[in-house]
């Protein structure tokens, strides 16, 4: 094998914010549950009861890890579906209270797309701005929530592109004062950080905590008005239509259990590595902006932008050097627009690199990244005639 080629074992996978590699315990649980948990959990024979039992055990475990009651937790086919159903279902349930939706401007696209659908359907949506660090303007958020026709507010635990933690507890207090339910999108922190309290609806995605793809979580607090906008279906407390993915759900619960057990230790370890990247990159790469809150942030995410650098060129070079990272720059995305998160923050959108460390990412890999990066950036700038 030529020395510039990397097989999958030597690639440093630094894109955990997109998806965390399947946890070995989730893999084991998945294989076991495919064998024993394949039957229809709604039926009454032996195999069905076994599938039902597995499903309910998984529900209890996930509920406990997320600080919910088992009967509040339902499983969806993805985090995106959890957001769509949670957001539109709560708006539907609160229709008589009003049709105004409040979110931050830096939510996941699933939130913003659902908000747009709500607007096309005659509702209104307000995207509250963020500061330079990506944190929502709490006083503007509070003011928006106080509007008498506000039906639902929505806020992420931490931003998926820059890692900044949002003031969910404060937002929840404001919502409570005005009797407005709060949907909390915990996709980036579930299994990694303790969840904030005060949510009415909680959404998460199993593949982001080391579970398999195809499993999302939608938890709805008792007492929260909720009405599915989809055709009637008996499954998952009538909130999520379709046959449950029992093996996937069992594996998701196993991954969450394993990640949560390890979370405190792994959180501080990864956070220290992210801290090192945040500190070192501006010293070894000129004209670079490290983005997001330096302290109050998700433990595993760091984003920076390199002036005069084409983000796609940098990703390609990093890939060749054996690093899997992502970027919010427009030239790397399928759309022509740069990341709405970076735009809302008013920070550089080109030359953007997001490093997000998975469980077990090593200090040696991070050091190698910090060694390789300056040369790659320099070369790209040279090619562009700016170095």
């Amino acid at each position, binding site marked *: 094998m030529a020395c510039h080629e990397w097989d999958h074992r030597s690639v440093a996978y630094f894109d955990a914010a997109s998806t965390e590699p399947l946890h070995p315990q989730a893999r084991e649980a998945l294989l076991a549950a495919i064998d024993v948990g394949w039957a229809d959990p709604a039926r009454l024979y032996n195999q069905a009861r076994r599938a039902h039992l597995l499903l309910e055990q998984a529900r209890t475990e996930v509920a406990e890890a997320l600080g919910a009651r088992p009967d509040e937790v339902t499983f969806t086919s993805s985090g995106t579906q959890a957001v769509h159903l949670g957001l539109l279902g709560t708006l539907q349930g609160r229709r008589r209270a009003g049709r105004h939706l409040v979110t931050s401007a830096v939510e996941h696209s699933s939130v913003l797309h659902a908000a747009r659908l709500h607007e096309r359907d005659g509702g209104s949506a307000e995207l509250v701005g963020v500061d330079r660090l990506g944190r929502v303007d709490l006083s503007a958020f509070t003011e928006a929530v106080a509007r008498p026709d506000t039906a639902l507010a929505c806020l992420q635990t931490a931003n998926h592109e820059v890692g900044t933690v949002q003031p969910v507890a404060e937002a929840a207090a404001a919502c409570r004062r005005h009797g407005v339910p709060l949907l909390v999108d915990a996709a980036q922190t579930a299994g990694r950080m303790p969840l904030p309290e005060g949510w009415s609806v909680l959404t998460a995605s199993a593949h982001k905590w080391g579970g398999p793809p195809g499993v999302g979580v939608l938890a709805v607090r008792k007492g929260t008005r909720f009405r599915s906008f989809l055709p009637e279906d008996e499954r998952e407390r009538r909130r999520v239509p379709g046959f449950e993915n029992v093996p996937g759900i069992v594996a998701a619960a196993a991954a969450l259990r394993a990640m949560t057990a390890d979370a405190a230790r792994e959180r501080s370890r990864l956070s220290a590595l992210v801290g090192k990247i945040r500190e070192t990159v501006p010293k070894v790469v000129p*004209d670079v*902006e490290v983005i997001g809150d330096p302290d109050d942030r998700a433990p595993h995410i760091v984003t920076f932008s390199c*002036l*005069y*650098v*084409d983000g796609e060129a940098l990703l390609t070079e990093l890939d060749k050097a054996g690093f899997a990272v992502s970027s919010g*720059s*427009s*030239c790397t995305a399928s759309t*022509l*627009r*740069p990341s709405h998160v*970076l*735009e809302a923050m*008013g*920070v*550089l*959108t*080109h*030359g953007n690199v997001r490093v997000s460390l998975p469980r077990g990412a090593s200090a040696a890999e991070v050091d190698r990244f910090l060694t390789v990066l300056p040369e790659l950036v320099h070369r790209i700038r040279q090619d*562009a*005639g*700016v170095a």
Partner: protein
Amino acid sequence: MTEATQPALTIDALGKKCPIPIIMLAEQINYVPLNAVVAVLADDPAAFTDVPAWCRLKSHRHVGSYELPQGGWAIHVRRNY
């Protein structure tokens, strides 16, 4: 209109994708005298965010961004040093 000075230089970056408009601006800002204004014409949506961000990082002044009739913006930057 104290701020909206007539540009001393106009950089036509229409049709060019970021980071090229920023690279052109960085190259050419020193062609104008101190306190003069450079107008960057750009239609890549990234430029709308990136030119003001560049000004902040490089301690120049973003005067304003004005929509162009044919689409895109004239983004005015004052040379500070």
